[in-house]
């Protein structure tokens, strides 16, 4: 089940947006403050220049300062913006010699200015002002009282400059982010190109094309490409096994069908009822064998090519054994034999497995016993509990099998050196598959009474264990 969870692009974009906006906020804050500082520096030096211009215009008459404010000083103060300006020249006692606004310079400020030139922020009539004050000592040969020169203006010039500087910074930043985004998209296209190529290649593949991949991929994708390759390999092997099996199976089925065809053809040519009867008997027998073969092939295919392991469950082997034996004892094919069940352990014995496969397993063993022993033989099924394992067994008192043949009995189409019976040789191969599926072991040995004894050893489940 494939679940689509967003796109790589959006994931990268989210990361980019988060980091860029965090960085951006910091950068912009910094840019704002530096713009403010720059504006401040620029205008403060203007205030200083205006104050100096006024200072140069101060004259002394009879020890009293006299000033004619030069218009250049006012020009410097006014700036290009709708600025209100302020100037004042104070004598040593704090009386205004000349001034335009009564801003109320406090004695505290005057004290500060007397030691060094000072910039101040003040609010007057609800407006922010920037003030600059400095003290002028007479530099002549006649000692005079110092005068203080105050100048100031409102902030709109500064604000405008700050805004302009900040705007530039913001514009630069936005352009940079946009460029980075576009570059990221381009980079992603380039980086994802191998993935697109691989996808294209996979899409163009034929359904039965299982050749290894031929693609150039970056290191990061190597693992995925290799996994795909090994998947293809496994599929190829599975398909080959299936083809082999189908070929085997159709060969197996063709033989008895050919027999049916020739027998019936000969009988149709003949006029003798005896020959018909003979042929019909053969046809009947062969049809039975063929249908048994078909069902065996089906279960072998089901066992070998089960794509998903069907659900195993906790099974009481005793009732399964009882059920299966009971079922087989009823059947027509068993009537000439003495099939029975040895006394079973009273308590249920649990094993983990698939019920259908276990029934198939026991059924094949019973079927084999019926086919490879003469009529009247005694076939007994039973169970023995060991410490770690549960043994299910089936034994007969038939002719048995030689020790050499015992070893390769479980190969498909092997009939224990017997060509006289009706078997296909598939029974034990099926049994073998099921045994391996259940992590069990099978032992084929000679029984005490001379026949064959097949023992199946299953791992035991303790009563509380659930796998």
């Amino acid at each position, binding site marked *: 089940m494939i679940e689509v969870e967003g796109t790589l692009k959006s994931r990268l974009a989210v990361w980019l947006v988060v980091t860029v906006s965090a960085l951006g906020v910091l950068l912009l804050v910094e840019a704002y403050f530096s713009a403010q500082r720059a504006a401040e520096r620029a205008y403060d030096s203007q205030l200083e220049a205006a104050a100096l211009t006024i200072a140069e215009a101060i004259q002394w008459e009879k020890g009293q300062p006299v000033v004619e404010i030069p218009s250049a000083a006012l020009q410097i103060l006014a700036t290009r913006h709708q600025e209100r300006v302020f100037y004042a020249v104070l004598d040593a006692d704090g009386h205004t010699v000349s001034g335009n606004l009564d801003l109320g310079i406090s004695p505290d400020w005057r004290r500060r200015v007397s030691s060094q030139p000072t910039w101040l922020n003040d609010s007057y009539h609800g407006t922010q002002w920037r003030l600059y004050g400095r003290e002028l000592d007479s530099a002549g040969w006649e000692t005079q009282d110092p005068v203080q020169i105050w100048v100031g203006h409102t902030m709109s010039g500064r604000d405008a400059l700050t805004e302009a500087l900040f705007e530039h910074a913001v514009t630069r930043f936005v352009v940079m982010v946009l460029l980075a985004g576009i570059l990221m998209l381009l980079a992603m296209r380039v980086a994802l190109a191998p993935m697109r190529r691989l996808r294209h290649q996979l899409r163009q593949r034929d359904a039965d094309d299982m050749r290894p991949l031929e693609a150039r991929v970056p290191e990061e994708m190597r693992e995925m490409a290799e996994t795909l390759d090994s998947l293809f390999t496994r599929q190829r092997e599975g398909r080959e096994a299936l083809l082999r099996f189908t070929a085997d199976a159709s060969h197996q089925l063709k033989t008895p069908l050919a027999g049916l065809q020739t027998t019936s053809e000969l009988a149709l040519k003949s006029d003798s009822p005896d020959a018909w009867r003979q042929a019909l008997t053969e046809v009947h027998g062969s049809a039975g064998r063929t249908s048994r073969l078909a069902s065996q092939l089906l279960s072998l295919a089901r066992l070998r090519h089960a794509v998903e392991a069907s659900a195993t469950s906790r099974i009481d082997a005793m009732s399964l054994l009882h059920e299966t034996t009971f079922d087989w004892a009823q059947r027509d094919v068993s009537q000439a034999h003495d099939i*029975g069940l040895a006394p079973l352990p009273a308590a249920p014995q649990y094993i983990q497995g698939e019920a*259908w496969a276990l*029934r198939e397993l026991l059924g094949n063993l019973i079927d084999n016993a019926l086919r490879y022993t003469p009529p009247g033989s005694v076939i007994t099924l039973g169970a023995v509990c060991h410490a770690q394992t549960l043994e299910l067994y089936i034994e007969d008192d038939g002719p048995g099998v030689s020790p050499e043949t015992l070893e390769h009995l479980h190969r498909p189409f092997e009939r224990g050196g017997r060509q006289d019976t009706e078997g296909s040789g598939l029974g034990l191969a099926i049994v073998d598959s099921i045994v391996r599926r259940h992590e069990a072991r099978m032992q084929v040995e000679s029984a005490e009474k001379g026949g064959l004894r097949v023992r199946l050893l299953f791992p035991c489940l303790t009563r509380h264990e659930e796998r």
Partner: protein
Amino acid sequence: MRLLVIEDDPLIARSLEQALTPLGNTVDVFTHYAQAREALQSGQFDLVLLDLGLPDGNGLTLLAELRQRGDTTPVLILTARDGIEARVEGLDLGADDYLAKPFSLAELEARVRALLRRSQQRVDNRLTFGPLAFDAGSGVATLNETVLDLPRRELRLLESLLLHAGSITPRETLENRLFGFGDVGSNALEVYISRLRKRLDGSGLRIRTFRGLGYRLEEEAS
């Protein structure tokens, strides 16, 4: 006895008809779901042989419908599907027996006979098998029309065996019927079986032992 065969393969349908007619029956054969459904609604049958894979419907639906109507006519399912799930599903829906294709006609005949016996019992409350008969109403068993004078437990044993005649009666069933659910000795049942065997001696019937499994009342093989 009237039998209904619902089977879409013409070869199998014909051989079923030929095999079942000599048992003294009329056999109606239908190859399609729709026809079979109509026939089932109108007619009274003693046994239905039902193929599951019909061209125009699923046999199991037919069976479910039949049972929903409260019709208890015995149904024997025939199918090529051998899976245990299909089998359990069929039996759960109320089928009486189940035979997987391919089957031998001899086996089919045996099962049909057993089911017909059950059908017969539904009608007149009598169980018969060959020369042996048991009237469940009066509790009288007869062999060749002669009343068998049997003690209570042997009578019960005979009834149980007759009920399953032709197929194996599980050992546990017999023990429960004879001795209740208490613990019994391992050979207590064997004692009654051998007594009954003596009664049936020479009647052409015998009780065959299936070791560890149960007993079967059957006709003596020729």
